[in-house]
C-alpha cells in the first residue's frame, strides 16, 4: 500500500466509519520526512524516447534484479553523468514514467475483422500466420518482376510500410532488410514529418 492509497483509506474511513475505527490507527504512522524511495531500487540507464536531444535517463524499477521480481519502472529521472542533459529533463521527459506505464498500452495481439466493430484477441502464432498469408497472396498477385523495358525491377507496390523513428537502429535495420527482401519500395518514415 502506498502513501496515497493509505490517505484514501484514512479518508474513506473518516467518511464512513465511527470514531473508534480511526482510533485504531497507529499514532506514528509516518515520519515527518518521507523515506527516500530509490534506496536499493534497480537502476537502468537509458535515453529519452521523445526528441533527438538524446537525454540520458536513470530508470528505477521494483525488485533487486533477482529472477523472481517482475521489474516494473516506478521512477525515471535525468542522468547527471550525461554530458548533454546533465541530469535535467524537459516536462515530457520528466513525465516518462507515465508514458511507460500508460493505461493505453497494447498488451496482446488483436485483430479487427472486416466490417466488425471490435477487437478480438489472438495468439502471436495466429497473427503471424494470418499476416503472412495476406502478404503472400498480395505479393504473388501484384509483384512486378520486369518493367515495360524488360529490366528486372522486382518490386512490390501494392503493400507499403510506414516505419518507426523511435525504435533502435538495430530494429530499423531488421525492418529495412525485411522490407527490401520482400521487394517493398514504398517504405517511409516519419522523418519526413
Amino acid at each position: 500500500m502506498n502513501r496515497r492509497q493509505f490517505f484514501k483509506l484514512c479518508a474513506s474511513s473518516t467518511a464512513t466509519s465511527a470514531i473508534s475505527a480511526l482510533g485504531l490507527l497507529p499514532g506514528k504512522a509516518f515520519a515527518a520526512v518521507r523515506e527516500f524511495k530509490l534506496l536499493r531500487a534497480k537502476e537502468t540507464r537509458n535515453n529519452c524516447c521523445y526528441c533527438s536531444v538524446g537525454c540520458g535517463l536513470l530508470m528505477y524499477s521494483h525488485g533487486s534484479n533477482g529472477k523472481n521480481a517482475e521489474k516494473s519502472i516506478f521512477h525515471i529521472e535525468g542522468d547527471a553523468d550525461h554530458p548533454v542533459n546533465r541530469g535535467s529533463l524537459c516536462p515530457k521527459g520528466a513525465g516518462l514514467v507515465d508514458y511507460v506505464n500508460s493505461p493505453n498500452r497494447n498488451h496482446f495481439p488483436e485483430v479487427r475483422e472486416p466490417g466488425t466493430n471490435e477487437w478480438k484477441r489472438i495468439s502471436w502464432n495466429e497473427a503471424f500466420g494470418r499476416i503472412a498469408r495476406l502478404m503472400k497472396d498480395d505479393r504473388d498477385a501484384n509483384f512486378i518482376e520486369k518493367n515495360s523495358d524488360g529490366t528486372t525491377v522486382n518490386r512490390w507496390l501494392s503493400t507499403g510500410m510506414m516505419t518507426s523513428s523511435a525504435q533502435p537502429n538495430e530494429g530499423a535495420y531488421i525492418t529495412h532488410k525485411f522490407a527490401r527482401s520482400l521487394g517493398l519500395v514504398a517504405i517511409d518514415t516519419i522523418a519526413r514529418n
Partner: protein
Amino acid sequence: MHKQNKILRHKLFDRICHWFVVAVGLVAFLTGFGFFFPSFQWLGAIAGTPQMARFVHPIAGLMMCLPLMLILVRYYHHNKWEKNDLKWMLAIKDVMFENEDKIPAIGHYNPGQKVLFRTFVVTSVVLTVTGIMMWQPYFAPYFASAAIEWAILLHAVCAVIMLIFVIVHFWMATWVEGSVAGMLYGSVSRAWCKKHHPNMLNDPKLKTIKQEKH
C-alpha cells in the same frame, strides 16, 4: 425524605437544553481547546484522533450554540435589566462574602447572571458565525483569507471569554449549593429563593411543585 413543596425554577425542556449544551459544550471544549493551546491537544483524544477532533469540533460547537441560543431566547424575559441591579453590582463584594443583609433583593436572576447571559448571547453568536467562516472544507473556501484570519482571532477571543464565563458559571453554581440541583431537577426550595432570589417569590406566575424525593 419527606415530601416538600418546591418552587419551579427551570422547566424540563430548558433543563434538557441546558444539560445538552453542557454535554456537547464539553465535547466542543475538549476538541477545540487544543487548537488554541496545542499542548492540550491530548484533550481531543476523546474524539479518537486529532483529525477526528477537528472534524467533530465544529459540529459539537454548532450543536452547543444552537440550543444555547434557544435557551437564551426563552430566558430573555428573566434577564431584563432592572432598577436594583446596579445597586447589586456595586455590592458585589458583599455578594461574594455572603454579607446577606447588605445585598439588594433581586429576582429570578441576579445582575451577575445577566452579564453572563449577555456574554453568552454575544459569544455564541460570534462563535457560530466565525466558526462557520473557518469551517474547512465546507464554508471556508467561500471567504477571503483575510476575513478568515480575523474570524480565527475573534473565534478564539470569544471562546476564551465564553470559557471564562463558563468557569465562573460553574464556580457560582457549585458554590451556591442548591443551584445545581435546581438545574438538575428544576425546583429549588422556598428558603433558597428567599436567600438568593427573593423577588422571585413575588412573581405572580410562580409555580410550586411537590416532589417525591429530594
